[in-house]
């Protein structure tokens, strides 16, 4: 029997909520929840960067930090401190955000982005990127566009959008493909993959992400507009 989901279609993302201005102390902040995966992002900056040797006279230095809160995992407690996984995710998140930022507008400064997962049920790097791009916009950083992200993949022989943990751990072949897109140009700023898939299916899976990413960016924009309506 073909693979099917109990509560949603294969190409349907989980319910999404998004808010900005959730952390008073930060220059910009956002909350992005998709299904049970929930991410906070805070932006501090542009701010002074020390030691001065780290400063770049041409542009701001973007520093992105991804972390899972200790109680955020389905399984065991998440030990804190830098680990290979979180260091790599911080790196690819930074690269996913970089193309939309006008860092040249803020020479010699640092823009720090902190992403914390409150709870994670797969798709945490994508949720983190969605939250971070909203937080950057909320901080008033000059940007060309927002960035939206989602995971697509292949579970039980079927192409799916927005995998959850149970699906990542599915017995048999699973491909998990996190993607981030810049909606105005259609360019891809994050692309990773775990698991076997043919080239044709991979391209199909990426094309399935597109309408969902467009929907996510609408939700992100609405959240930003709602915030400014309320102030």
């Amino acid at each position, binding site marked *: 029997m073909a693979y099917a989901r109990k509560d949603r279609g294969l190409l349907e993302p989980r319910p999404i909520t998004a808010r900005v201005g959730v952390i008073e102390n930060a220059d910009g902040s956002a909350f992005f929840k998709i299904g049970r995966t929930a991410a906070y992002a805070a932006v501090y900056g542009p701010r002074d960067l020390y030691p001065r040797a780290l400063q770049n006279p041409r542009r701001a230095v973007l520093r992105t930090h991804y972390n899972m809160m200790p109680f955020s995992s389905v399984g065991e407690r998440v030990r804190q401190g830098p680990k290979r996984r979180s260091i*790599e995710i911080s790196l690819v998140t930074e*690269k996913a955000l970089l*193309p939309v930022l006008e860092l040249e507008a803020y020479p010699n400064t640092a823009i720090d982005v902190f992403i914390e997962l409150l709870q994670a049920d797969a798709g945490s790097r994508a949720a983190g990127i969605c939250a971070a791009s909203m937080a950057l916009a909320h901080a008033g950083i000059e940007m060309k566009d927002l960035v939206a992200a989602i995971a697509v993949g292949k579970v039980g022989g079927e192409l799916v959008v927005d995998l959850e943990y149970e699906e990542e751990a599915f017995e048999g072949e699973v491909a998990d493909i996190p993607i981030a897109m810049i909606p105005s140009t259609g*360019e891809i*700023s994050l*692309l990773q993959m775990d698991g076997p*898939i043919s*080239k044709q299916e991979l*391209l199909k899976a990426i094309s399935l992400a597109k309408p969902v990413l467009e929907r996510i960016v609408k939700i992100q924009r609405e959240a930003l507009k709602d915030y400014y309506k309320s102030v």
Partner: protein
Amino acid sequence: MFINKESLLKMLDKGLRLDGRGLLQFRNLEFELGVIDTAEGSARVKLGNTEVFAGVKLSIEQPFPDTPDEGILMVEANLIPLSNARFELGPPSVEAIEVSRVIDRAIREGKAIDLKKLVITPGEKVWSVSIDIVPINYDGNLIDVGCLAAMLALKNTVFPSVDENGKIDYKHKTNKTLPLREWPVIITLHKVGKHLLLDVNEHEERLSDCRLSVAVMKDNRLCALQKGGDKPLTMRDIDEMLNIAIDKSEELRKKLEVYS
């Protein structure tokens, strides 16, 4: 020889590269297996001036609680300062972590090793396979070269003997080899301006806009991807990079025909 990006782009427009290669041409490949006596398996790979050792050490460990019926696989790349002026002493850099994790992903997701066959007592004792990748001269493209060296080292690995108390006797090797069932090959393509480059050297790597690493299996299906670098990719770039990666993985496999 150093040139700036503008000059490199001018050369690439004419289809030229600093070392005289075509844009989609590998550097010269050399490799040998079984080069380290103290490792259970090893290989040396030299692609152009990037020269890498990979060594496999085996040990008996408790399995991870979430995979009681699987052996353990670990991959680590060590960017030692001996191999390049740019590398520093200290804990693994972000770059080293990314290289390690991308190669790990290709080998793990490609199911290169049948980890289920590495179980001694389920939930208690399993074989652990540690692959260490160490460049001794770094000149770009470490993900591809490192993955190749790791796979050759796995191919070369034999189990050490185990005494009646279950203790490993590293001095006495058996002739039992690892349960390998797939051979993922990573092909990384760099985008520089509008050009795609294969097997970049360090200088080209520094001037690259972005890259896509594609892990290709024997049947030409893909098992891992990693986009790197600052600039984004278009769907057309991705399509073209996947096609080239699949072609080039076949070309690389032919060079290894004796083994894979």
